[in-house]
């Protein structure tokens, strides 16, 4: 018997944080303009000590003003999608659930686009206006997961195949609406490929990073308070209830928080796919399926995965860029098929 201890959990997280750090350094170094490790270290120290003004080289500007914010965005988006995927898998009792596969990311994209369309017509304070897009994305995500949940029910039970089919069809339906909206509107709302495939190249205001960071911590923290309930929920709602889980409360918390995380990620990066599928499975394989470990390791793992994928997206055909979502889909779709076949076997 080797139950989880706080010490082991922290060690596992620390290991992943070290890997994340290495990945971040590599991501800062590589790109269309090569940067030496020495220059990188020197400039990063200057940023840390508040001497950004001394960074005069073009390299420094590229690293601090272009690559670093993009990497930060990748960390938040990856962590959010990964925690959302882990949560949906437990909530829907389906190992193949993922915000992208279930169409939730598309729903969030549509919500964000509608918010962007509505924004000029609304008279709201500027601070609130910046939050309209994430709010729209959250509502889009929440509405989609509710629709998919009801589509996936047969005779009062969730049927996992029907659920996945329902998600895929909902996703393709919403994508069609997005294509339609984008082709009839002016080109001011970013490209179709941003919303359907996702990318991290759009620069954001500094305040948005704060909003993303705090939003992530609050929503992921709320999900984490239900971590051991989620372990039992995997055995079924009835069984979880008999073991002492307040099932309706846990379902509501996880449903709202996971939709929020999806909305958060999609509103700034579009629909980056399969992160919420690949990362939880890899972490489960390495660390086991206890959600007290799985949720934090999936969050850090998601950050690692998206930063790596984005570095590839920036460098593979440099100076041209590929969507980060294209990179994650190239890895994720075959994995999805493998998992599906293994489950059917």
């Amino acid at each position, binding site marked *: *018997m080797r139950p989880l*201890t706080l010490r082991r959990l922290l060690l596992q997280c620390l290991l992943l944080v070290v890997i994340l750090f290495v990945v971040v350094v590599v991501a800062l170094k590589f790109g269309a303009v090569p940067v030496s490790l020495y220059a990188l270290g020197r400039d990063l120290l200057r940023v840390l000590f508040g001497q950004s003004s001394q960074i005069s080289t073009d390299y420094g500007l590229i690293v601090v003003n272009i690559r670093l914010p993009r990497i930060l965005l990748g960390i938040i988006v990856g962590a959010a999608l990964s925690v959302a995927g882990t949560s949906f898998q437990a909530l829907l009792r389906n190992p193949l659930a993922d915000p992208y596969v279930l169409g939730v990311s598309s729903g969030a994209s549509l919500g964000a686009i509608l918010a962007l369309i509505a924004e000029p017509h609304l008279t709201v304070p500027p601070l609130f206006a910046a939050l309209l897009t994430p709010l729209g994305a959250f509502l889009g995500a929440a509405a989609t997961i509710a629709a998919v949940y009801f589509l996936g029910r047969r005779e009062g039970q969730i049927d996992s195949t029907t659920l996945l089919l329902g998600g895929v069809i909902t996703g393709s339906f919403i994508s069609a609406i997005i294509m339609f909206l984008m082709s009839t509107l002016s080109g001011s709302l970013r490209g179709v490929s941003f919303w359907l495939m996702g990318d991290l190249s759009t620069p954001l205001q500094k305040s948005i990073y704060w909003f993303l960071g705090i939003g992530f911590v609050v929503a992921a923290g709320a999900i984490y308070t239900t971590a051991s309930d989620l372990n039992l929920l*995997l*055995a079924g709602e009835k*069984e979880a209830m*008999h073991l*002492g889980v307040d099932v309706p409360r846990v379902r509501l918390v996880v449903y709202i928080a996971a939709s929020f995380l999806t909305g958060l990620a999609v509103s700034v990066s579009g629909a980056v796919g399969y992160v919420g599928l690949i990362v939880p499975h890899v972490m489960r394989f390495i660390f086991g*399926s206890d959600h007290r470990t799985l949720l934090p390791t999936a969050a850090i793992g998601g950050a690692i995965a998206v930063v790596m994928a984005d570095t590839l997206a920036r460098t593979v055909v440099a100076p041209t860029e590929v969507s980060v979502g294209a990179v994650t889909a190239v890895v994720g779709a075959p994995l999805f098929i493998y998992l599906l076949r293994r489950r059917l076997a």
Partner: protein
Amino acid sequence: MSGSSALARNSSEPARASGDVRLSVEQVSYAYSANPAQAPLFTLEATSFQAKPGEIVAVLGPNASGKSTLLKLISGALAPLSGRILLNGFVTHSLTPRTRAQRIAVVQQESTLLFPARAWEFVLQGRHAYGRSLRFESQDDILIAKNALAQVAAADLSDRWMDQISGGEKQRVILARALAQQPLLLLLDEPTLHLDIAAQIGLLDSLRRLAAENRYTVVVVTHELNLAAEYADQVVLMQRGRCLRVGPPASIYQRELLEQVFQTPLAVELGSHGRPRVTILSSA
């Protein structure tokens, strides 16, 4: 700490004499309907019985007689349409899920797993109702889980994967998880369904011993007439949503009554130790 004393409940409830009633089902009824405007598809008519600590109650009856509904009502999963169910004086369905899980353990027919788990992880789930959501299992929890496995002779299964053990072994681990809940009331829904005869006897022997040692009140839904006669102190006989009789096996196992309920010719004889035995006769 010996196995049984570790599992015996440190209850804060007042000590009661062993003759006291622990479970009291009072005029409980229920109705299932597809929607509120329609006539119910199935009704459970007012049912009453009582059970003491250490007693095993078998709920018998053909399919669709209301056995599982009665069990769900007792577990608090369903709220009765009328009447009430008291466990040590508390109405079961108005307890919070957490308190209920500390008092009532339910062993279901099948326990499905989405991701692989080891037997010890599974048994520790029984401690969930005692921890806070972020708390890590204490030494007490681990000791109780170990003892629960030992009590069902499954200590050697502790590190095995749940999907790699036999049906009988799995059923024992599921029972161990229920024991780890340190319940007052143990509810089992057809626990012997997929077990071979040796495993059935083994499971029921364990139940008999555990009920005696730990003073659990046990309610078990079963189709096995002879196993119920052998192990139960009381039998609740159900037919089409009605509770026909409640009493010790010897008073319930009458040929005419059982033939009428189960719609099949059978013979009832008294075994050497005073418990009835049923033989199904060929209708040809």
